[in-house]
């Protein structure tokens, strides 16, 4: 019973992390508020896609073959990784000067293109984890029909989702307790770690599809120190891309990812400097 609640919570948290961070961020600026419909649109589209994927996983529909699923998952993870990085870089470049840009009318350039990216990101985040939750709950409810405790199982599922919403709410609260600047930094790091984990999971699938060579497999074996089956190792695997048996190509891609991200953020910060220095003359509430 607790297990049902726990699994629903775990599957929902990744999506809620992305949605929650974007929501806090959008709500904080008048320009950002305009993006909220895109955010909720992404949630809706994600739920629809999750339903479609769940039908495949349940064997009811076969619009994707087995290998097709593998490719689809790999490409979804890659797309989500790219969109998260793009979002973080964009936030870094525009976040501070957004209000001023809006007032000077310069924000016209922050057009629909960006909001569509946001919608796609939310949709993928919701669909990835949502499809598994749907299948899991479907199976749980179906099997509990036999034993007659459907109500209890449904309650456990609802409990798990409520716990996930509570996590979302705590994150919102976190944005209020700590300073906005620190919240911004913290969520930036969380999002970049998550994007790295998505990239590593995509390389896992590409390796098993025989598209990506391993070069050397594995480079090391740290399963004795920190396994990825449960506990801290699993959390690090899901949210930071840790692997106990990494292939050399995965390791190189992961390192390259952080180099590229560091370089892009440096460039974005430099581009944001004129806006920041312009603002320095007038005191602005952070």
């Amino acid at each position: 019973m607790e297990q049902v609640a726990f699994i629903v919570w775990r599957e929902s948290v990744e999506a809620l992390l992305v949605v929650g961070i974007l929501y806090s961020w959008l709500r904080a600026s008048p320009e950002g508020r305009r993006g909220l419909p895109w955010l909720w649109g992404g949630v809706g589209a994600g739920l629809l896609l999750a339903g479609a994927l769940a039908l495949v996983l349940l064997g009811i529909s076969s619009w994707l073959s087995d290998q097709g699923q593998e490719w689809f998952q790999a490409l979804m993870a890659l797309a989500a990784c790219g969109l998260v990085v793009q979002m973080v870089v964009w936030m870094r470049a525009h976040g501070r000067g957004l209000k001023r840009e809006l007032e000077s009318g310069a924000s016209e350039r922050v057009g629909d293109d960006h909001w569509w990216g946001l919608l796609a990101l939310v949709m993928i985040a919701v669909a990835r984890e949502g499809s598994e939750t749907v299948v899991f709950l479907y199976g749980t409810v179906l099997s509990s029909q036999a034993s007659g405790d459907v109500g209890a199982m449904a309650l456990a599922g609802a409990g798990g989702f409520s716990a996930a919403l509570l996590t979302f709410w705590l994150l919102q609260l976190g944005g209020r307790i700590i300073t906005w600047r620190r919240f911004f930094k913290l969520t930036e790091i969380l999002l970049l770690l998550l994007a790295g984990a998505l990239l590593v999971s995509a390389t896992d699938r590409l390796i098993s599809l025989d598209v990506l060579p391993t070069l050397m497999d594995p480079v090391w074996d740290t399963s004795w120190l920190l396994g990825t089956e449960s506990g801290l190792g699993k959390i690090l695997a899901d949210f930071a891309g840790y692997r106990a048996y990494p292939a050399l190509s995965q390791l190189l891609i992961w390192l390259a990812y952080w180099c590229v991200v560091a370089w892009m953020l440096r460039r974005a910060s430099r581009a944001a400097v004129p806006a920041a220095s312009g603002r320095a003359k007038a005191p602005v509430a952070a």
Partner: protein
Amino acid sequence: MRAWIAFAALVWAGWLAPMSVAGAADMPVHTLTFKADGTFEPARLEVQAGRFKIVLVNESTEAVEFESLPLRKEKVLGPGVTSFVVLSLSRPGEYPFFDDFHPQVKGTLVVLPKP
């Protein structure tokens, strides 16, 4: 708009890409069953190093997820669904796997050196 074009390309690629991958001809096939009583059959699956296929059969009435990070596999199966994974392992040794929807259900893949 660009994001939508990218997404459309993604769906299209997910559809067509498998066709370009050569079919899995004569490779050893093993079967792993998720039993209705919540165990793996067999719990220790022995295979020979190389490329092989494991057919996953979910005989239980619940959804299961075959998962193993060391094997780089994650596969969700609805109740009664049969699917498969193809693995390429050259390094002999023991690789743990488990059912992510029932984390206490564990198994081991034993890769034996090539004769």
